[in-house]
C-alpha cells in the first residue's frame, strides 16, 4: 500500500514539527491515541503516506501540510510533535 520512495541520504526518523520546510517526507509513526490516529488517517496522514510542510505558523503556530493525496491541512504543532517522519528524495 505504501508507495516505495527512495529514502534521502540522511534519512533519520524525526518528528514532523522539526521537518524542514519543503522537505518531502514519509510518515513512519502516528500518535498512540487511536481516536487521534484514525482522525489523522481520515485526512491522509497515516503510516506510509507522504507529506510536505509548506510553512509554519508564527510563534509555535500550526504547520501547513500538503498530504500525498493533494489535500492541504493546518496541523497543530503539538500534534505534529507526535508524528514521526523520515525524509525522502523529492
Amino acid at each position, binding site marked *: *500500500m505504501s*508507495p516505495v520512495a527512495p529514502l534521502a541520504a540522511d534519512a533519520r526518523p524525526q518528528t514532523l514539527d522539526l521537518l524542514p520546510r519543503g522537505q518531502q517526507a514519509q510518515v513512519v509513526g502516528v500518535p498512540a491515541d487511536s*481516536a*487521534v490516529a*484514525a*482522525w*489523522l*488517517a*481520515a*485526512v*491522509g496522514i497515516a503510516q506510509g503516506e507522504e507529506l510536505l510542510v*509548506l*510553512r509554519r*505558523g*508564527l*510563534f*509555535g*503556530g*500550526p504547520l*501547513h501540510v500538503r*498530504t*500525498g*493525496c*493533494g*489535500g*492541504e*491541512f*493546518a*496541523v*497543530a504543532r*503539538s*500534534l505534529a510533535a507526535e508524528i514521526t517522519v523520515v525524509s525522502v528524495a523529492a
Partner: protein
Amino acid sequence: MNAEDCHGPSAVVRSPVGGEPLESAASDRGTTDRRVVLLGRPNSGKSSLYNALTGGSAHVGNYPGITVDVLEGEVELPTGGRVHLYDLPGLYSLASATDPDSDEGVAARFLGRSRGEGALPLVAQIIDGTQLALGLRLTTELLGAGYPLLVVVTQADRLASHGQVLDGAALEEALGAPVVVVSARSNTAKALVLEAIAAHPQTPPEARSIDAKALAKAVLREATDAKAAQRRARERTGKIDAVLLHPIVGPILFLTLMGGLFAAVFLVADPASTFLDFLKGKLAGVITRRFGEGLITSFINDGILGGAGTVLAFMPQIVLLTVAMELLEASGYLARGAFLVDRFLRLFGFSGRAFLPLLMGHACAVPAIGATRVVRDPKERLTSILVIPLMTCSARMPTYALVTSAFFAGRSVFFRAALFVGLYAAGILSGLVASLILRKTATRGKTLPLVLELPAYRLPQARVVLRKGWLSGKRFFRDVGTTILAVSALLWVGLSVPVQPASAGGTVAERSAAAAVGKALEPVTAIAGFDWRINVGLIGSFGARELMVGTLGIIHGIEGADQDDAPLAEKLRTATKNDGTPLYSRATGLALLAFFVLACQCMSTVAAIKRETKSWKWPLFVLAYTYVAAYVVAVVVYQGARLFGLG
C-alpha cells in the same frame, strides 16, 4: 431533526395508475419510499449538489463543516415518484467522530439510526474529484457497512482545469457501485444525479476491499498537458497563500481586512441610514399634516415610525456585513484566518477551529452558536457557545450608531469609524477574557489539537452571495415587521397612557406606567448614568437589543412632539432636563456603549444556547454573567469618564 420526519405529511405516495401492470407497482416500492442520504467529506460540494437537486438554499461555503444540521428536501424523479433527500453534515470517517454533538457526530448518528428503519437508505457519497483518494477512504468504510451506494464525483470542471479526466466506468467497475461524474455548479448535474438515483437497483454492492490511493491513481487519466495545468492550479493557490499566510504580511493583511470590514460597515452604511432617517422624517411630516396632532399621529409617528422604523434604518449595515462574511467564507479565506489566529486563540483556550463560529457571531449569534459544531472538542465548543454572545452582532449596531452620532457628531467621520472598530475590538477582547476565565473554571480541560483543511481558493458565486444578502435583509425586515412592530406598539401604549395625574407635572411619557418602572430602577442605574428613559429602553430591549433605539425613539418622539422630523440622534443630543442642562453627557453615552458590548439582550440567543447545550443551566449562566459584567463595566466607564471631564 429526526429521521422519523422522513415519512412526514409531504410524502406523496404515488399509486400505479389503475390497471397498470404490477411491474410498475413493484418498482414503486423503491420510488415512493425512497430515501437518499447525501454524504461526503466536509467541503466536498455536497451542499452545492443538494441545492442543485432541490432548488434549496443550503448554506454553501468554502470552509470545512458548513452544514451543521441535517437538511431535508423532496425531489421528483424523471421516471415519476419522489425521493426524500437528506443533506448530512460533512464526515471524514464513519469511525472517527469523537463528540456525538459535533457535525460529524450528527452525520454518523443519522446513518446509524437509519439502519433500524426498514429499507436502508441509498447513500449517495459525494466525492471532490480533486481529492479522489481521500474520498475513496470513506467509500471503503461505506462498502464495509453494506449501504446501497451511489458515488457522485463532483468538481469535474476543476479536475479538468487541473488537466485530469476521471474514468467513471473504471471506478464503477472497481467499486461495484454506480458512479456519476458531475460538476455540482453546472445545470446538468441535477439531471445526471436524479437519473442515477432512479436507475439504482437499491441493493448494496458486494463487500470488497479497495486500496483508495491505488484506485484513485488508476482511474484518473492525465490529459496531455496535465502536469503543467495541475502545476499551474496548485501554484495559484500556493501563490495566494504565500502572501496571505506570510508570517509578517499575512497577519497584517488579516487585521487590516477585519478592521477594514467593520469600518466599511460603518462608513458605507452610515449615509444609507441617514437617508432612510430623512425619509422617515418626511413621512412623519406627511402623517402629521394628514391626521393633525393627536393620538393617531403619535401612534404612527412615535410608536411605529419612531420604534420599528428607527430599527429598519439599519438594514443596509446588516446586509453589507452578511455579504462581506459570505465573500470571505466562499473564497476559502476563512480557513486561512483560522490558520493565522490559531496560535493567538490558544492563549485563551481556543483553537483555530473556533474562529469560524466566533467570526460568524459578528453577524448574528444564533447561527454562530449552531456553527460551533465544527469545533470537535466538547469543552472548547461549550466555551465558544458561552462567549459568542459577547461578539458584536449586527443587532448592536443601531445603538452603537445612535450613540456615536448623538455624542460624537462633532468629531470626524474617521474618529467615529475608529470608535466603531474599537467597539468590535472590545467585544472580541471581552470574549477572549471570558474564555480565559471559563477555561480555568467552568470548562477546564485540555483542547484537542487543531487539524483543519485549507481548501483551494475559489471565486465566490455572485448569485449565491447576493441571495445570502437578500435573505438576511428579508429576515431582518420580517423581524421588524412582526416582533419589533408589536413590541413597539406595546411600548407606545405603556409610554402614552399616564398613570399619574397631570398635576404631578412633566410630560405624558414621564407620567406613564413604563416611566414608573424606569424610575423605580434609577437608584441602581444612576451611578452608571442611566435615567428612567434609558432604563425603559433597556427593559424594552431585553428580548431583542435592536429595540433600544426603537424605545428611545418612541420616548423622545412622545416627549419632543414639536421636532418630529429631527433624527433621533439630534433629539438625544439636544434633550434637556427641566433646569435646562443637557439630559445626557458623553459619559452616559460611553457607559451605554459599554453595557451593550457585554449584555446578552437577545432571547433568540438564549434559546439557541438552550438548544445546543440541552440544559437551562448554560443560558441562565450567560444571562447572569453578561448582565452583571455589563452593569459593573458601565458603572466603571461612567464614573471614569466623569473623572476625565466627560460628565
